[in-house]
């Protein structure tokens, strides 16, 4: 009887704290993304003013941080490059991974795709990988931008488990902005819920 009096309030306290903090146990490990882990604070110098509808050229001198922006640092990004490397979308196009609705879980059936990508990276030690996460059109925009990133990160974790050094892998989310199929039916949506693997080759002479 005396034991119960002590245990009961303890159980309530535990339950209350779990209710507010959530259960920490079992949170999957997530891996920090290397690279631009410093902010880029430019002072806007060297750039024209925008006014109505102008664009800012050559923005973001990374004053003091020595942080690389994009090669050729011009007005808009060179879309064939990512982080100083050349994008090769064709090399691993066959291994695109697809996801269930509203899910970032890598399905069991995708194991062969993950292995193929891991092998490609193992045989090309100078290469890196960019994973593009995408969603179908049915979610809201910021939720989808986050979900697309979560999908890319989940694939990064899967590749890490398959032996790929996570520092070679970067992620980008396109939310629902870049569908593979512009249709508005279940068949199109299934194609759009995907992670695309973009092999990155070093620039020649670098």
């Amino acid at each position, binding site marked *: 009887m005396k034991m119960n009096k002590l245990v009961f309030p303890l159980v309530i306290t535990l339950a209350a704290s779990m209710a*507010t*903090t*959530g259960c920490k146990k079992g*949170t*999957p490990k*997530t*891996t*920090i*993304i*290397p*690279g*631009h*882990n410093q*902010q*880029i*604070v*430019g*002072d*806007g110098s060297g*750039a024209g*003013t*925008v*006014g*109505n*509808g*102008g*664009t*800012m050229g050559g*923005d*973001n001198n990374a004053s003091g941080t020595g942080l690389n*922006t*994009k090669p050729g640092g011009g*007005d*808009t*990004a060179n879309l064939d*490059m*990512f*982080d100083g490397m050349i994008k090769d979308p064709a090399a691993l196009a066959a291994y695109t991974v697809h996801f269930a609705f*509203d899910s*970032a879980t890598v399905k069991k059936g995708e194991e062969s795709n993950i292995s193929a990508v891991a092998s490609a990276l193992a045989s090309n030690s100078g290469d890196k990988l960019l994973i593009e996460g995408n969603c179908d059109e*049915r*979610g*809201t*925009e*910021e*939720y989808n*931008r*986050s*979900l697309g*990133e*979560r999908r890319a*990160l989940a694939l990064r974790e899967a590749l890490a488990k398959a032996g790929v050094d996570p520092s070679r892998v*970067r*992620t*980008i*989310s*396109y939310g629902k*902005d870049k569908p593979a199929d*512009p249709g*508005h039916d279940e068949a199109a949506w299934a194609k759009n819920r995907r992670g695309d693997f973009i092999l990155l080759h070093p620039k020649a002479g670098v």
Partner: protein
Amino acid sequence: MKKIILKFLTIGLVAVALPGARAQEIQVGKEINVLGQTKPIPVSLDGFTGEAAEVLKFDLFVQGFSFVAPDAAQYQISGSSAGDVSGRVTDKFAKKVVLSRSYNGASVRRQAHAFADDIVQTIQNKKGIGQTKIAFKSQSASGNGEIFVADFDGYNKQSVTSDNSIVAKPAWSPGKLAVYYTSYARGNPDIFYHSLSGGQRRVIAGYSGLNTSAAVSPDGAKVAMILSKGGSPNVWVCDADGTNLKRLTTGLEDSSPTWSNDGQWICFATKIAERRRLAKVSASGGPVKTLSTAGVSSPTEPDWSPDGKWIAFTSQTRDDFNICVIPADGSLPPTVLVAGQNPSWAPNSRTLVFNHEIGHRQVLSVLDVFTKQYKDCQRANGSNSQPAWGK
């Protein structure tokens, strides 16, 4: 015994439904009217034509007025817009003129907006929204787009960017002519701070992975955002210039932070135990507390009203989206308002701007929460979405 128990149960039910809201009707049936929703104030408009009439109707409609014949009106608004705008408001029951004013300068639209504000101030004793601005994104079929600012009714739009890249989630710096937004102009989603007066911009969050969903604290000093550089998309906070970055959450899938009016709390969308939830965390760090949105599915994109009382959000089902509102203190279940997404509160904490779909394009629309009346804004080219109301 049974009779007494039944009596207690009935009282209990009534007591649960009543707390908080003022003029609440309890409707038998599906929806409980939790917001104390009101009927519009009936007014008549007489003597205004063209753009002035258009502006008066739009502004008053979305602040909770309806338009009737003079006999049926509570207030009669008459005047002229041939040349400059002038007008008067007569309180029909009190039988007296409560506002009489002429306007000049700027444009007819500006004058009419100013008159609408004076009408709102006179009748509702509130500051009107007639001269406020919105920022939004306009996207083409390619997925690329630009950030725009416009009058809150969509008129006089001007592009802020011209990068022809993917853009997202503009947010105003309160009290300043400056916006933050996400842009892929540099090949990655980065958060920019962009001065609308000087025209200069800089990246304040350009880390590896995702940088998006900037939300500025009410005092303009801090920015909450979603960064994935820690390995998952989470809520981080930094100073307005991007310095002093601090991580606030560690869940797997966070999105859309929004600040409470006192700057103490950040509400956001998250997933807990496979369920999509709204939650809040102290802006200085601490445990995550879930908010109840029982009765609607998959809450997302929350926006906290400037007076602190309400959180508007998008509820997502498999096929559609609905704008919903809950009291910020969680005292009542959600009210479903209209079909649409991405609500953003006006400074009056009663009108919302949002977007909804018309033929595979998104169109901006303005909604009065308390009367549920809404009207589409003037459209920019492309698909217009993610509006942010300047405060």
